[in-house]
C-alpha cells in the first residue's frame, strides 16, 4: 500500500516545474488545503491565485490567464469545479480552447458522509459531453505524475479527477508505461475484459488475480483517458473475450460503461456489464464502505464475472 495521494503527486510535480516555468499558475477556491496545494501557495505566492469560495470565478479567471500565455491549474472539489462551473468549463475553457487544466479533487464519493452535494458521480458525463474537453481519471500517483507532465507540454483544455485518499500503487518508478490518450493493458486473458478507471483499476487487477486462481483469465485495462477515448484498445481487447465488464466510481449514465458499450456495440457486439454507483444518492459511509456496499471491489467483480461466464 502506497501512501502518496494522486493530488499530492500533482502538487509535487507543480512545485518542481514552477521553479523554472514562471507561467505555471495554481488557482484554488478556498480549497488549497484539501487539494494538498498549500505548499505551492507558500513557495510560489506570485504564481498562486486564491478566488475564495467562487468556483465560476476560478474557472473564468483561469481561462483569462491562459488566453494571456499562462498555464493555469485550477484545483477545487470535483463536484464544484465541474457542475458549479460547468458553463465556464464549456464556454471559457473548451469552446474558447484555452490551456486550462481543471483538477477535480476529492472526486467520486471521496467525501463519504457529506452526501450528494459533495459527490461527483456525473463528472465524466458532464465533462466528456463538452466538445474539446479531455477527461482523465489517473489510477495511481506514478501515472498521475506522467499525465501531468504530458499535460504541461500541450496547450489544450483538460479535466483531471483525483480522489481524496492515497491509493495503492499499480505502477512503479521504472515501470509506468505512459502514452497520452493510450490506455494501458495491465494483463491479458482470453475470457473476460475488465475495463476500469481511477481507483477501480486496482480492484480490477486484484479481481483478475483471484479469477486466475479459479481458471478464469481476464484482460485488465487502465482506461485513465476517458476522452479522447482509446477506442483502438477497447476494440482490440474486447474482440475475442466472452464478455466485458466496466467498473467506475461514477453514475451509471454517461460514464466509462456507456462509452465502452457504445464502442463494443458498434465493433464487437457482445455482453457488456457496467458496474458503477447507483442512479441515486449513495448510502452514507466512507468511500470504502460505499464501494463495498455496491460491490465496487475485487469481490464484487469476481462475483459478477462468475455470474456471466459460466
Amino acid at each position, binding site marked *: 500500500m502506497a501512501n502518496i495521494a494522486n493530488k499530492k503527486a500533482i502538487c509535487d510535480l507543480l512545485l518542481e516545474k514552477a521553479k523554472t516555468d514562471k507561467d505555471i499558475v495554481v488557482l484554488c477556491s478556498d480549497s488549497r488545503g484539501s487539494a494538498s496545494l498549500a505548499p505551492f501557495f507558500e513557495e510560489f505566492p506570485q504564481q498562486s491565485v*486564491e478566488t475564495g*469560495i467562487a468556483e465560476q470565478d476560478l474557472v473564468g479567471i483561469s481561462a483569462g490567464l491562459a488566453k494571456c500565455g499562462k498555464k493555469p491549474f485550477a484545483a477545487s472539489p470535483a463536484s*464544484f469545479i465541474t457542475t458549479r462551473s460547468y458553463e465556464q468549463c464549456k464556454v471559457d475553457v473548451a469552446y474558447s480552447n484555452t490551456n486550462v487544466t481543471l483538477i477535480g479533487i476529492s472526486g467520486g464519493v471521496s467525501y463519504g458522509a457529506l452526501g*450528494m452535494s*459533495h459527490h461527483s458521480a456525473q463528472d465524466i458525463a458532464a465533462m466528456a459531453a463538452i466538445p474539446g474537453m479531455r477527461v482523465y481519471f489517473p489510477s495511481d500517483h506514478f501515472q498521475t505524475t506522467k499525465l501531468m507532465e504530458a499535460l504541461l507540454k500541450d496547450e489544450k483544455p483538460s479535466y483531471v479527477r483525483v480522489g481524496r485518499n492515497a491509493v495503492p500503487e499499480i505502477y512503479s518508478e521504472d515501470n509506468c508505461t505512459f502514452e497520452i490518450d493510450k490506455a494501458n493493458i495491465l494483463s491479458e486473458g482470453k475470457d473476460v475484459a475488465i475495463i476500469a478507471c481511477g481507483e477501480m483499476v486496482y480492484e480490477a487487477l486484484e479481481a483478475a488475480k483471484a479469477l486466475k486462481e479459479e481458471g478464469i483469465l481476464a484482460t485488465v485495462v487502465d482506461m485513465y483517458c476517458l476522452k479522447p477515448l482509446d477506442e483502438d484498445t477497447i476494440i482490440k481487447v474486447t474482440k475475442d473475450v466472452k464478455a466485458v465488464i466496466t467498473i467506475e466510481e461514477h453514475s451509471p449514465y454517461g460514464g466509462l460503461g456507456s462509452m465502452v458499450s457504445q464502442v463494443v456495440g458498434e465493433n464487437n457486439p457482445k455482453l457488456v456489464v457496467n458496474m458503477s454507483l447507483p442512479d441515486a444518492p449513495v448510502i*452514507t459511509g466512507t468511500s470504502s*464502505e460505499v464501494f463495498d456496499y455496491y460491490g465496487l471491489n475485487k469481490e464484487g467483480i469476481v462475483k459478477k464475472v462468475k455470474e456471466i461466464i459460466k
Partner: protein
Amino acid sequence: MGELEKLAYDLRKDTVDMIVSGKAGHIGGDMSVMEILVELYFDQMNISPENKDDPNRDLFVLSKGHSVESYYSVLAKKGFFDIKEAIDTFSKFGSKYIGHPNNKIPGIEMNSGSLGHGLPVGVGMALASKMDNRKNRVYVVMGDGELAEGSVWEGAMSASQYKLDNLCAVVDRNRLQISGTTEEVMGQDDLHDRFRSFGWNVIDVEDGNSIEQLKMAFDKAKSVVGKPTVLIANTVKGKGSSVMENNVSWHHHVPTEEEYSQIIKDFQIRKEVF
C-alpha cells in the same frame, strides 16, 4: 431570562457529542451559528413538528449547510426527532443523518451543502408567499466565506427587485473560512455597504452570539416594509471554548479526548454566567 442562552450551551454539547460520535463535522461554524439558530427556532419562527406541513409556517434554509450538526441539535430539541438517534448514528454507515442538511429528515426544508444556493431558494420561497398572500417569513443563514459565490448576489438583487420584506438573511460573520481569515482570502470589510447598495436593509448585530441582540435585530427586521433585511451577525468561530475560538484549524476538527473534556468544562462555565 437566560434560558435560551443556557439552551445554546446545552445544544453545543449535543453538537460536540455528535461530532465525536461520528468522527466528523464542521465544528467551528456549528459553534458560531448556535445562538442564531436558537433565537430563530425558539423565539422567532412559527415552526414546530405540529405545523411542519402548514403552508403558513415560517421557512428556514441553512445555506451554510456544513453547520448541520448544530442544526440537528436544534431540530431535535424542537421535537422533530430523537437527539440520541442523531448523535449515535451521525455520519456513520447507513445513517440518514449525513454531513449536510437533507429533507428526508423531518424539519429540514431544503438540501444544501454546496455553498451559495440558499439565498436564491429563499427568494423563491418569499416570492411564493407574496403571490399567495401568506404572512409567513423566510430565513436564510449564510457563512461569510460563502458570500464570495456570485449566486448569493444574484439572489440579493432579486430579493430587492421584488421588495421581499418577508425575507431575512443572516450572515454568520465569524471572519474565518477554510484557508484563513475572510479578509485574507476574499475581503469583505465593506459588507454592510455591499448589501445596502443592493437595496437591502442592513442590521449590524455587534455580538452575533448574544441572544438579546439577535432578538432585537430579528424583531426590528419584521417591521421593515418594502425591502429584504440582512443581519450581519458578528460571531466567534468555535464560540464556547478557548480551545476552538477564532482558530482556523477548527473549521472541521474532531476533538481529542483531552480537548473534549476541556471544551465541556468551558461550556459549563460559560453557561453558569447566565
